[in-house]
């Protein structure tokens, strides 16, 4: 927990700054509204964490979120009875995309950057082809309640957060970090590296499905809903102190990073700074955080036997 302190300190400072500009933020309703809005990004960050800490990337989550929402609208088409079957299908689709990403990356040895970039383009094109550029259909009220009702959204977020933290404490978590830290060493000590990485991608796909369900619920059908989310998720994870290249960082800090990023966006909006700056801010954060990590590395570096990731 001590290692995570910096990101929590930053988060607290930002939350205090928001509260200063907007006292309503201190009331339960105001704060929970913020948590609800942040929930999809926090969940995506948790999913992205699993992939990043295992030494890979998942660039496909943004377009997967869009695909989930567009598919949901088309299949439900305003019909309340269709809600639950479609929810199951959406989760299944998220798992499947994650499985494909993982299998292609590990079994076919395509670098995950390329695999998931390809998936991103495939999904974007497929969604465009299927919808002709504009989504059709409508979501049902029962579907929208998860993202729109504050209590539901917060409960789902808590459940995902606790599950992610428990998962990292279990054997799976240790093998995942070991894989990202030193693949060869992990493999030699009996970790099934491929299986662990595939699972990480599957978890990321699952997270994207849940985030899509929440986002669709929050604001309704839109073909732009997932735009840029993959970068927000990676920014959040990096902001949480997780090292790109894998092997270091905690999932709780990654989720705190997502909350921090969302708090930063809220603050920018509160102070009337153009939304266009959001991308700039993300860019600065990614570079600054990675640079901050790299600049100090040589001084604290103590050579370990078999550490293959010195250069990263």
């Amino acid at each position, binding site marked *: 927990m001590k290692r995570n302190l910096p990101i929590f300190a930053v988060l607290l400072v930002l939350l205090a700054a928001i509260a200063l500009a907007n006292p309503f933020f201190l009331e339960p309703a105001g704060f929970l509204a913020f948590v609800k809005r942040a929930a999809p990004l926090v969940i995506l960050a948790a999913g992205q964490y699993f992939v990043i800490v295992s030494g890979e990337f998942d660039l496909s989550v943004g377009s997967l979120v869009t695909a989930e929402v567009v598919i949901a609208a088309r299949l439900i088409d305003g019909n309340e009875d269709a809600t639950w079957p479609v929810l199951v299908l959406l989760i299944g689709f998220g798992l499947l995309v994650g499985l494909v990403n993982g299998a292609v990356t590990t079994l076919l040895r395509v670098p995950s950057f390329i695999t998931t970039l390809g998936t991103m383009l495939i999904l974007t094109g497929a969604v465009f082809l299927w919808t002709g550029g504009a989504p059709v259909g409508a979501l049902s009220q029962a579907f929208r309640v998860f993202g729109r009702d504050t209590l539901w959204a917060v409960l789902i977020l808590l459940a995902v957060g606790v599950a992610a933290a428990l998962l990292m404490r279990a054997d799976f978590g240790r093998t995942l970090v070991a894989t990202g830290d030193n693949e060869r060493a992990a493999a030699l000590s009996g970790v099934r590296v491929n299986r662990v990485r595939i699972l990480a991608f599957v978890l990321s796909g699952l997270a994207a499905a849940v985030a899509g369900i929440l986002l669709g619920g929050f604001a309704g059908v839109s073909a732009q809903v997932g735009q840029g989310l993959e970068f927000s998720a990676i920014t959040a994870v990096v902001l949480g102190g997780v090292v790109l290249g894998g092997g270091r960082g905690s999932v709780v800090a990654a989720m705190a990073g997502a909350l921090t990023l969302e708090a930063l966006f809220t603050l920018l909006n509160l102070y*009337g700074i153009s939304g266009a700056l959001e991308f700039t*801010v993300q860019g*600065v954060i990614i570079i600054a955080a990675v640079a*901050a990590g790299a600049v100090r590395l040589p001084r604290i570096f103590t050579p370990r036997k078999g550490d293959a990731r010195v250069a990263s």
Partner: protein
Amino acid sequence: MSRRKTMVAMFALVALAGCTSDKPAATVTSSSAAPSSQAQASGTGEQSKFFDQADHDAQLAMRSQTPEGPADKPWEQAIAPEMTDTAQYKKDGPYHLCFSNAAVNNPWRQVGWKTMQAEVAEHEEISELTALDAEGKDDKQISDIAELQAKGCDALIISPNTTATLTPAVKGACEKLPVIVFDRGVETDCPVTFIKPIGGYAFGADGAEFLVEKVPAGGKVLALRILPGVDVLETRWSAAKLAFDKSGLEVVGVEFTDGDAAKTKSIVSDYIQRHGKIDGVWMDAGATAVAAVEAFEDAGRPVPPINGEDQQDFLQKWKDGDLTAIAPTYPTYQWRTPIIAALKILNGEQVPKTWNLPQPKITAETLDTYLKPNLPPLHYALCGCEDMPGFPEKWGGQK
């Protein structure tokens, strides 16, 4: 451990930079006060550089003029038409029409495109319609227009992606065959006719005037725009700005939503929190109006006067919530007119040089005639397609 401290310092710096950086001119809030040049208290900022007073006045005047043509077919009507001779283009059918479409990437263009295809199907004398979709790219549309000239078209319909960039391509096509431009314009009068609804100034003014009437003096209005710098959207806002400047209303914010529902909802929620109360919402397009309304619902506040557009989801929300609302329109029935114009031109009949179509607004009185529950939520009500074969299934509706 010290590495972590460095990171904290970096993040703090980033955060600080975010807090203290200057506000860009494009985003205007009440706290930034009005720009010095105009010293207006209404908080609307400086006038757009796209603003043209004469066009503005002409459009606002057109709203009350009676259009010529059959009243039950607004897509054939024209306001104050100046007819142009087309005898030189007269030829015998059957006709091969060509269409260079800017894009079909939003629900408005989808409804329009379906309506145009249905119009073509109604005319036996059209043997073929060759359409190319430029996918929102200027360069693709320029090559599309060149390609269509080699296809033996009898007339070319163009819906330009952007105004200035497409002008040379349109000029080139004008030399080869009769050209019809609609929706967005070009900077040349070489097309035989240019078809458009009244325009963006009228759209923006319809919404703003409604708010000025319904919101009590001194009320706080939030203006939501899609993006800056697009002429057809700038005109909408600049007309609204003029109306707000003359009124006693306070525009507490002018924000850009990118046309994104989640972003719209977040922005409106933030404004409700920050100001406690928002008394009116103006929008330059209705696609995210439902998200704005939901922000008030989710905050447990009454929905203030708001303008949307003629999309079914907004009309339904309006009806269900008994909102104080208005829906200016940019009618999709304008997609029928280019086909009708092409046939007139090839018949040698006169057409208006600038074909100004009527641009109605939906009010509480006319809401019920436009709200059609059997149509999909993203359908635009003013398609003029109700009597066409295949309605409503072709437009995604249910019988």
